[in-house]
């Protein structure tokens, strides 16, 4: 009896890790196939999938784990891109410096805004995160020194220890995959640590977590800062891929799109966020070829997902969740 129970106890971590491994291997295989076939478009598309998935993943950590629905997460991605752009203007283009810089700057921005937003809950929290994202959007739009409304081209692609690893499409795709893998495994691991448990406990019943002696505010603040930092890293790669940064990265549509990706993949499933991001981008590309109204198709998929209630896309892969 105890042995059987002990086995079940391992399940919560093992299952998402298996799903994470599956998702990462699939993406790696796709990248290698695209590279072997010499298809530059597919390579850059897959890099974009990995980058966007990292951003969606960090949002999934907030929505699915901490229960904090941020409607401004694209701002964190965009700010990361701007750090890459602005640092590049001042000659900082090596990832050893650029990545920590972007992470810290945006994590700080996230922490400061969260310190205010976290005093509210529900719709008010959503509106405040949106408001802060709009502030970031308009600040960058008014910075004419760095392109203003039109955006600005990146000085040059970033290097790693001086080596131009992001120069080629393959290098960029692999870097994006590496970031995604680190973020995915890190977040999945985090969910099973004490910290992750308290976050989930507070999501389920905040006053119970408080009465157990946890300063929930602080746990959530750290989660928000961490998610912002990870989104910023995605932003750095996004800037490098497009070699261009504009305020449109922070548009609230983009924040909404990230939420769609998270929900489509199953909000409580971290690997699901990666699948959700891939599905949304594939729909965008596939339907975008045919019609500029591709969002109609995406809308139908969302409606279908909602009608299937609970049986989200992650249920199609691996065992169905309860």
């Amino acid at each position, binding site marked *: 009896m105890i042995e059987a129970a002990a086995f*079940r*106890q391992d399940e*919560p971590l093992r299952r998402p890790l298996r799903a994470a491994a599956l998702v990462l291997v699939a993406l790696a295989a796709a990248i290698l196939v695209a590279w072997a076939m010499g298809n530059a478009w597919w390579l850059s598309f897959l890099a974009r999938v990995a980058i966007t998935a990292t951003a969606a993943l960090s949002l999934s950590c907030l929505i699915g784990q901490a229960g904090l629905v941020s409607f401004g997460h694209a701002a964190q991605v965009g700010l990361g891109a701007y750090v890459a752009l602005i640092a590049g203007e001042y000659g900082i283009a090596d990832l050893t410096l650029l990545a920590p810089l972007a992470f810290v700057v945006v994590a700080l921005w996230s922490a400061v805004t969260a310190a205010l937003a976290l005093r509210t809950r529900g719709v008010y929290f959503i509106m405040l995160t949106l408001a802060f994202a709009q502030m970031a959007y308009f600040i960058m739009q008014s910075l004419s020194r760095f392109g203003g409304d039109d955006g600005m081209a990146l000085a040059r692609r970033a290097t790693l220890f001086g080596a131009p690893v992001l120069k080629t499409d393959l290098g960029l795709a692999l870097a994006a995959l590496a970031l995604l893998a680190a973020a995915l495994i890190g977040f999945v691991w985090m969910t099973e640590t004490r910290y992750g448990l308290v976050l989930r406990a507070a999501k389920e019943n905040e*006053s119970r977590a*408080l*009465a*157990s*002696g*946890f300063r929930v505010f602080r746990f959530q603040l750290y989660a928000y800062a961490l998610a912002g930092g990870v989104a910023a890293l995605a932003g750095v790669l996004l800037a490098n891929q497009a070699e261009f940064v504009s305020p449109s990265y922070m548009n609230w549509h983009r924040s909404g799109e990230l939420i769609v990706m998270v929900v489509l993949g199953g909000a409580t499933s971290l690997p699901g966020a990666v699948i959700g991001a891939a599905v949304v981008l594939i729909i965008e590309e596939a339907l975008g070829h045919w019609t500029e109204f591709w969002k109609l198709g995406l809308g139908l998929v969302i409606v279908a997902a909602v009608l299937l209630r609970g049986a989200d896309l992650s249920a199609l892969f691996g065992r169905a969740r309860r």
Partner: protein
Amino acid sequence: MSAPLVSLEGIDAGYGRAQVLFGMSLTVAAGEAVTLIGRNGMGKTTTIRTLFGLIRPTAGRIVLRGRDMTGAAPYAMAQTGLGLAPEGRRIFPRLTVEENLVATARGAGPWTLARVYALFPRLAERRGHLGRQLSGGEQQMLAIGRALMTNPDLIVLDEATEGLAPVIRAEIWTTLRALKAEGLAMLIVDKNLDALLPLADRHVVIEKGHVVWTGSSAALAQDRTRATAYLEV
């Protein structure tokens, strides 16, 4: 007796304009088992919510271990050594039994996962199940175990046997006696006088938000008609 572990002094509290507690006072000393009894709607749960900082009192003082904690945040109250097994159990439904316990584990003290499992072997058997998959009795055990995992000096049990099968109730009472024997202070809200009498040292009867009777188990047994007059509808 040294300074009490917990003392509520002349607390007024309520929800918005609906005041529930009117000069509520209560103390629990280290190692002491105190009951809080009274009819529904008299302020038992409100007293507990106030003690845990979930409601801010409009008057009076909350003193924990000699420190004035009036108006402190719930986490701060809990960190001074209060553990709560709340009414309705309120376990985390989408966390497993073990996650429920590990999530709240805190402080160095006698309570570890192994000891909670020893106290409630049922929980060990069901450690991999989600909170919502448990029976009511198992959920109650989990709620008590979760409170113990914070290594409290005082455990507060709000209607811990409510709605449970008699055999499970008996098990819970046995467990509480064992905890009492170990010197854990407890504040118990319950309606089952026959089980409370042998367990508790002192009883506090409240009506309409303030104390109307208080005394030892012996006094309550003697004065049962007068004290229980407050309990009957």
